[in-house]
């Protein structure tokens, strides 16, 4: 007779590696683990939660709903990045001059910004954030925009309403009407299309036809923005930060709260892995223990366990989970506990119990009883090692189910409210109508990661199943 069937861990592993799907699964898993480690190491938990809550305008310098940077490759044109120029930060492109007016306590503050704009598309937004210091009277501010061609557009003066006032340039009605009347008069009473936004009028190459039809091309070149302000008071001062928001940001884009998606995507990995593995592991182990106890002791205990298993089949798992999450304040650990409690008398018990029942009759078990081995010893030394191996593939294959369960819960808005998970990103995206507004990346990225995780465990689990289950091997 030729080859002997090999047993043992090493042999199982060696055979596992002959399956390409298993190798693929392990590779993806390694990638996800690396991602998780990276996430936990670079952004500690508390910081991640704080960042994701996005309070105190943490993300104000990020564009809204920006595409990921790699989208440029598909779009075929250079998409604008965000440009931030702050008068408090010395650097190229910003200069500030303060000139006191002799004989008064007024000061003239001039801030110059130079914006070298070379992108193929318009910015998404432009905001100017002021930071003023004054006693009684706020500064009077005038804004001048100079386009590459040299033409200047002057905006009417306005006074700040608070020390930290902002000018939302792109949505301000005053700004828009100034621009429209400027171009209207410049091009001899042209009827400027009301489709054109302030951004397009500012950064676009204006032509008569373009203005009328509402289609302008981007004018590349050197833009100069000047802030002329009059400050009142000895100690008064004015600083300003201009943000020209791009259309792309980061490796994953941003959401409608300007949060960079990569934080949630990165942190979703350890959460998904930990939740899925823990849930699956604990459920499998507990089910195994319960099934073994039932099958071994038999009688009333077994009956009770059987009845419980039947009840569990009728228990509506997800509605229960939803009800509990909706009514009570819960975090991810409670969700985990509830999921496990709702699963322990599930279907896996039937097959494990059948297996234990058949092992119970083996001669060597009888022999152990005869030489006086205690029940515990028999169970742990003889029975459990025999039933463990067939359970491992099931354990691994069950992980995706739990991962999707958590994702589903977050998707419904019922998950841990603070933890950034993939399901939560999907929930945010769905609530903001991402599917209908074409923010596909917002949905695709967490979905792709969820799918990868599922594939990793599923491929591995299915291959393991074929290795451990000889009957399936021939098929």
């Amino acid at each position: 007779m030729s080859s002997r069937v090999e047993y043992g861990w090493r042999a199982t592993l060696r055979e596992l590696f002959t399956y390409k799907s298993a190798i693929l699964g392990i590779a993806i898993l390694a990638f996800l683990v690396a991602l998780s480690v990276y996430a936990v190491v670079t952004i500690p938990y508390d910081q991640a939660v704080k960042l994701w809550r996005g309070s105190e305008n943490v993300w104000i310098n990020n564009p809204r709903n920006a595409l990921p940077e790699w989208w440029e490759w598909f779009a075929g044109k250079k998409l604008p990045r965000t440009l931030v120029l702050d008068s408090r930060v010395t650097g190229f492109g910003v200069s500030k001059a303060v000139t006191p007016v002799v004989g008064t306590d007024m000061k003239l503050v001039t801030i110059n910004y130079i914006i070298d704009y070379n992108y193929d598309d318009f910015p998404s937004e432009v905001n100017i954030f002021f930071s003023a210091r004054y006693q009684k009277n706020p500064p009077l501010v005038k804004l001048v925009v100079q386009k590459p061609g040299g033409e200047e557009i002057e905006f009417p003066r306005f006074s700040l309403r608070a020390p930290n006032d902002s000018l939302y340039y792109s949505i301000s009605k005053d700004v828009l009407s100034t621009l429209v009347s400027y171009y209207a008069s410049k091009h001899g009473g042209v009827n400027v299309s009301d489709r054109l936004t302030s951004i397009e009028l500012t950064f676009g190459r204006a032509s008569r036809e373009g203005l009328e039809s509402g289609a302008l091309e981007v004018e590349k070149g050197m833009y100069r923005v000047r802030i002329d302000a009059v400050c009142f008071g000895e100690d008064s001062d004015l600083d300003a930060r201009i943000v020209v928001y791009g259309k792309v940001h980061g490796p994953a884009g941003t959401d409608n709260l300007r949060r960079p998606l990569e934080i949630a995507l990165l942190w979703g990995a350890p959460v998904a892995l930990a939740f899925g593995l823990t849930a699956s592991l604990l459920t499998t182990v507990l089910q195994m223990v319960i099934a073994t106890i039932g099958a071994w002791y038999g009688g009333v205990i077994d009956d009770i366990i059987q009845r419980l298993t039947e009840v569990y089949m009728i228990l509506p798992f997800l509605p229960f989970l939803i009800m509990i999450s909706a009514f009570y304040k819960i975090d991810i650990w409670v969700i985990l506990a509830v999921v496990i409690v709702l699963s322990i008398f599930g279907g896996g018990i039937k097959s494990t119990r059948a297996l234990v029942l058949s092992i119970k009759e083996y001669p060597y078990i009888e022999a152990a009883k005869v030489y006086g081995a205690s029940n515990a010893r028999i169970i742990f030394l003889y029975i459990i090692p025999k039933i463990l191996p067939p359970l491992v593939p099931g354990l691994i294959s069950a992980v995706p189910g739990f991962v999707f369960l958590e994702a589903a819960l977050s998707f419904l808005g019922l998950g841990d409210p603070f933890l950034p998970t993939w399901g939560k990103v999907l929930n945010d995206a769905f609530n903001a109508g991402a599917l209908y507004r074409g923010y596909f990346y917002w949905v695709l990225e967490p979905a792709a990661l969820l799918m990868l995780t599922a594939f990793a465990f599923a491929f591995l689990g299915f291959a393991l199943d074929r290795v451990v289950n000889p009957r399936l091997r021939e098929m």
Partner: protein
Amino acid sequence: MCSAMVSKRLIRHLVIRGVTLYLTVVVAVYLTIIIANMGGKVDEFVLGDLYTRIYEEVNRNPQYRALPGPEKDKLVKQMFELEVKRLGYDRPFIERSFIYLRDALTLDLGRALFMLSDSGSRLVRNIILERLPNTVLLFTTVTVINFFIHLLLGLYLSRHHGSLLDRITVALSPTSTIPGWFYGIFLILIFYTWLHLLPPSGMVDVPPPPDPLSYALSVLKHMILPMLAWIISGFFLGVYSTRTFFLIFSTEDYVEAAKAKGLPPRLIETRYILRPSLPPILTSFALSVVGSWGGAIITETVFQWPGLGLVTWQAIQYFDTPVLVGITVIYAYLLAATVFILDIVYSLVDPRIKAGFAR
């Protein structure tokens, strides 16, 4: 072969099974009430509901219409407290819980806080039950379609096992660990956001077409994506499972004996491979049906399909407690009913059960 030899014993077995299942429903509903009321939620809405009812009654009653405000309030409060005593709502929790249990089991689920049913009723029972047929329509159709796809393709693959198609199916079976609603998201992305071919949500066009035929067609059009999502999800594993079943069953000795007997190949396939393998196929089919009820919630949310699942989601959004509790109760009943029906079908198909009770 499928003679309706339904013996008395078989009926008795089914009755016992029905009673057992009902008992499990009772346990499930009781658990629901206990858990829901741990934060006093059930008490809240039961009492609140009672108060509102009494208030409305008093207002409607011509006798009391003339009463000034504060007097009316006092009257309502008096009547309320009387009712509470009468209905036993002031008893200790254990007793109360059984009263709630009785109510829930008879589907007296109270009134919703915010939501309204399609017909304008505020009764939780109506809100949920009116939407039930839509869910049944969608999910039963998908399950039936899946059953036949898996059966036929599994049979085909078992005959050609080892072929390229077979190996692809085996390799891709892990794709079924991803639930249908997830594929649904992708499908919406492709067929609506990108291609603008199919509608992303709802059951029927808005405004709904007037005549029955175009209404039906419109519903069908809206059913395509959610059904496709669940077909894709269950496909590879489903076909793989039935194919494996058929393979195992076609290597049985009695199949070879049938061939030796000179029976034509078609007959062998139907009578000697298909029929004996129906019971285990039905079992896994049963499990998938039960599972699909759970998946309904998210699927209907994703596709905004007006069924049970969407009601759940809306109840979550509005935080409408009585509806959420009601949903759990109805789900318990649904699951029990499904299991029971499948039990009946199973016992009719597997003669070992049918005959075992005829002796």
